[in-house]
């Protein structure tokens, strides 16, 4: 079954050329773990924003085939660290937005990411890894078919990165949740994904991690985007 389908997708912030996304055709099937990679400005985050319907395509279409979507935004220290909100409040308000009546879902979500002990803590006092796990727990509260993450390892220490990626892999395999993750961490993309979507100059192609590594090595250890592995 298809989870995301993009056809002849063009996007430009000005409405005309140059296009950030320049004629994208993409099909992502359910159960895949797809990492979207590419250099800064290649259109990775724009693609995410189009999938989430935050912005509209200039032409063409991109449609997720499910309404149950979980989203883990990029960590934004400036806006969030000083915000007076507890972990419980973050999850409880989100539960209310999703119209979930069962309050136990908060405890279950925290247990899932091993952070029940921080339930009463302020979000701003958590480490980068902990707050990212809370965001993932929140995204999973609606029991999504599709989980979209924007650079999940940004601002997260190496130990927590490993835990996060292994958790994402687990929910992808065991729960069948389709994962689409914008990645700047190429090691994580190659080790965890079932497919990699490589964006360059507004155009992309889907390949296996092995094909991506081969392509990478063919370029003398440097990707087309000058990203070091």
């Amino acid at each position, binding site marked *: 079954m298809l989870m995301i389908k993009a056809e002849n997708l063009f996007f430009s912030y000005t409405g005309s050329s140059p296009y950030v996304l320049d004629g994208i055709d993409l099909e992502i099937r359910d159960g895949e773990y797809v990492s979207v990679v590419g250099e800064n400005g290649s259109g990775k985050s724009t693609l995410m924003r189009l999938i989430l319907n935050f912005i509209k395509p200039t032409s063409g279409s991109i449609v997720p085939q499910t309404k149950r979507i979980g989203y883990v935004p990029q960590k934004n220290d400036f806006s*969030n660290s000083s915000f007076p909100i507890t972990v419980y409040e973050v999850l409880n308000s989100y539960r209310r937005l999703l119209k979930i009546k069962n309050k136990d879902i908060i405890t279950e979500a925290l247990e899932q990411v091993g952070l029940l002990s921080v339930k009463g803590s302020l979000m701003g006092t958590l480490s980068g890894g902990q707050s990212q796990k809370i965001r993932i727990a929140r995204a999973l509260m609606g029991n999504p078919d599709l989980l979209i993450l924007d650079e999940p390892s940004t601002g997260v220490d190496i130990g927590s990165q490993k835990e996060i990626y292994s958790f994402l892999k687990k929910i992808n395999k065991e729960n069948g949740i389709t994962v689409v993750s914008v990645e700047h961490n190429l090691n994580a993309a190659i080790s965890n994904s079932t497919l990699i979507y490589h964006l360059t100059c507004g155009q992309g192609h889907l390949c296996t991690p092995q094909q991506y590594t081969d392509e990478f090595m063919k370029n003398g250890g440097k990707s087309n985007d000058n990203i070091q592995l």
Partner: protein
Amino acid sequence: MTIFNYSFMQNAIFVSVFISILCPCIGIFLVLRRYSMIGDTLAHASLAGVTIGLLLNQNPILGAFVFTSICGALIEFLRSYFKKYTDLILTIVLSLSVGTAITIISSGKLHVNADSFMFGSILTVTHFDMIMVLILSVISVLTLILLYHQMVYIAYDEEAAKVAGVKVRLINYIFSILVASAISVSIRIVGVLVLSSMIALPVATALQLGKGFKLTLVFSIVFSVIDIMLGLFISYYLNVAPGGFTALISVAVLVFVLLAKKLQSSIRTARCK
């Protein structure tokens, strides 16, 4: 005879109770979304509303509410045209409203003095004002309770709110009307010039306590009650405008809390040594 026996003082206390509840409820969202200056702009817009109301022989608070709501909606509307220049939008709305107010006041067509709305006055609260304040406050508080979780999320993580299906644009428009309501309720006592202090300072003080959202809101209301009531009573005995003195009390309470926090942290450090 105590000051509580004066009917003008009873009216002023009645209105002040609503101000002290409503302003921080709105203020917490404005401050946390870093929109404090919107409060200031709309406070100035309310002066234009007051003058339009007086010019048309209507209740000035009603005039302030209608005009400030329009300006609030205008800010929200212009946001899509000037996405990265929120301050420019405020300048546009400020120019429109202050320009309107000055033109009407200087035309000499007003038969009532609009000065009391600039500085605040406890003598001018009428029964009709009290009814207006009661209606606006009750509707606003009920709306806030109804939209509480949506508004918390729009302030905390707007993108996550959108994914959860929150109609962000619509709620932003409703919020503009709530801001207009809080401002209209407050202008009689606090006055236009220092009204934004009532919206931002109790919240700024409560933020120093480092609590979660709900407790920060509760403490904002507590500080707001302290600020306004002290401001009201002391300004009565000093025979000065309540608005200005309430603003001074708000700053004093904030400084007091900052110093207490500093002292507490010094004591903790000394104990650790």
